[in-house]
């Protein structure tokens, strides 16, 4: 009996390592964090908009088409990396993309978009990070897909890569 007890540490250790190995082997993305908002309506907010004088009211958006919401900033390096995919989603897929400019300067953003191209139909300014808090944003860039009824269907933390681009592509086709 005692002999078997002595093997327990080994067995437990072995099982835990097995799980770790499995997690390392599978193609897994630790930055995919579930959102409590998935499946629920977009949070209501209003904000100043970039380029336009009138305010941005979330209640007037997300009503009749699939919309991509992208939190971005010019100081965030990964945002620059993913920008090309945001452009493709907007130009090639014809998606309505709303940008939320997180803790940034208006002049900088304007310059940045002029240089890289502007994929956004509207841009809301989130100076104090309040919108990001309401949306449960972990860190930028972060992207949400909202369906035509204003329900959040997808969330991705981190820059959009080729793989994520394809994922969004498939998802949007499914929603349509």
């Amino acid at each position, binding site marked *: 009996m*005692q*002999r078997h007890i*002595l*093997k327990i*540490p*080994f067995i437990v*250790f*072995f099982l*835990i*390592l097995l*799980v*770790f*190995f*499995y*997690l*390392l082997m599978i193609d*897994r993305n*630790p*930055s*995919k*964090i*579930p959102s409590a908002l998935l499946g629920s309506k977009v949070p209501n907010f209003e904000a100043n908009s970039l380029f336009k004088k009138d305010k941005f009211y979330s209640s007037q958006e997300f009503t009749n088409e699939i919309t991509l919401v992208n939190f971005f900033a010019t*100081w*965030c*390096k990964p945002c620059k990396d993913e920008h090309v995919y945001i452009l493709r989603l907007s130009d090639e897929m014809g998606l309505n993309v709303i940008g939320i400019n997180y*803790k940034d300067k208006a002049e900088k953003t304007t310059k940045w978009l002029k240089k890289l191209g502007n994929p956004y139909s509207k841009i809301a300014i989130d*100076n*104090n*990070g309040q919108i990001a808090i309401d949306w449960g944003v972990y860190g930028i860039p972060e992207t949400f897909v909202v369906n035509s009824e204003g329900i959040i269907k997808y969330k991705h933390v981190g820059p959009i890569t080729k793989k994520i681009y394809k994922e969004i592509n498939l998802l949007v086709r499914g929603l349509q």
Partner: protein
Amino acid sequence: MASTLGNILLWLSLLFSVLQFFNSYKKDNQNTLKINKIAVNGLLASILLAFFLLIYSHVISDFTILNVVQNSHTTKPILYKISGVWGNHEGSMLLWILVLAVFNYFLFKLYNNKNTIFISKTLEVQAFITIGFIVFTIFTSNPFEVIFPSPENGLGFNPVLQDPALAIHPPLLYIGYVGFSAAFSISVATLKLNIVNSLPWYNYMKPFVLAAWTFLSIGIALGSLWAYYELGWGGWWFWDPVENASFMPWLLGTALLHSLIIVEKRQSLQAWVLLLAILAFLLSVVGTFLVRSGILTSVHTFALDPSRGIYILAFTALLGFYSLILFGSNSKKYFNNNYFAFFSKEGAILINNIFMIIVCSTVFLGTIYPLLIEAITNNKISVGEPYYNSTVIPILIPAILVMGVGPILSWGKQNKSEITKKIFPSIFITTIFTIIFFSIYRLISPIGVVGIVLAFWIISNNLVIFYKKINRSFGMIISHLGVGLLILGITGSSVWQIEKIINMKTDAEININKYKIVFDSIEEVKGPNYLALRGNFLVYDKNKNIITILKPENRFYPITGNFTSEASIHTNMLRDLYIVLGDGNLQKGWTVRLYYNPLVVWIWIGALVIFLGGLISLKNNIKKLA
């Protein structure tokens, strides 16, 4: 140039550790010692040189080296150029190996004419661990990798990490983690050689465990101090996976340290101690694996690279399988059936051991539970503060009660009326202290009362022990006192913290506790490598005297493009006032977060006292060995 030299030094150190491994493996005694002397000193010298070379490269901003480019910048202050060496993955691995080499050297110093075989076996295991980490560093995390063409300047260093507490936090933590490697090696050597009762292996193990535990304690405390003033969330412990990765070996280390005392005095529990020593080091390595592999995300996660994760895991598997199978087959000889009296010093230590193991398992479960769930169901969940608070704290309460009374008890069985007589003074003092405390603070909440009673229970027990000279281990008394102070701080700051988050324009005022805080002005300031917006907040006490001006800052580091907010804190023995400046502008005002944190400073005073106690014990234990 520096890169070539660095690589040569790394390979040289590998050569020395391989030499140590094979030399310790063979049985010939006379030459073993001589050759090991060369190997041990050679390893230490080459890795020390490599480490200084990397520091030098960082200091002179040698941008032919990738590691310098990725983590440094010419405008960075000199202190952070140096601490930047271990603030990144590659450099920190070099530091890890350096600490391994230092402990290796101390193990070598244990040689005497009676223990040659035993120390050789220990050095063999230690060499194996060292080889594993050097190979890992050379092939997956080489700090001396070149970059061509070399850029004009570096990418800079994460400004959140540019901090004095964080500059010394990793080295202290590594002394802790790596110190357990020596205990591991001694444990494996003991199991392998079957030296029941012929050699006091536990006397050799104790100073290493004591050193590891002492430095791990202060390392964790510094990390939490950093999180407290740098992250700007008003708290000091967040149950982050990385914090847990250091807390778990600490818990096992605590159990190990106390069990070693029983082994020393009674020669029982030997098998248990051998197992704990193995597990403490394995947990340290698994902790490193969790942090470095990218399997968990956290603020501490360094650059993700799957090959690193697989390597560390494979190495951990190797160490774990070998040592635990060895334990399964050989530990039986270290069993004895000396049963314990419940009401005795060894009884108290054993009970505390069990509590420590339960807490450690609970934290471990909370850390890997999301991973287990994900592996099985593919769903992601997160386990946070509520889990830990509702599981860990109830287990710790009885553990602390026992901790207070343990040192008062004597070894072996004793009758209960005698125990009552012994602990009566501390019950009395605790009651007095608690009544005084609450008559001043007048903030009674059930959990607060429990915490304060526990803190005073530990403090008064140790005062009694000291006064009556019940126990002569001065280091122990100091450390236990430190734990009492620590609990005082933890209770005060978590039970009675006040948080206010408001929008403030200049000249606005707000009351927090009995203080009035006026937002006087805001100004732009220029630091060495950042620009900042600084708010000036006047703090008035209830007699309307200004007691301080708090100046929280919002900093922008142009090189890395980071924004950070620097909390401004006014500390005294009774409370901290803590202000963080958020976003805003002149017209709309700024978001301001204010905290009133009672007794929080006692957390770090307590940790420092624990550390000092540890050092005193360490000194005495080394003296005993010599």
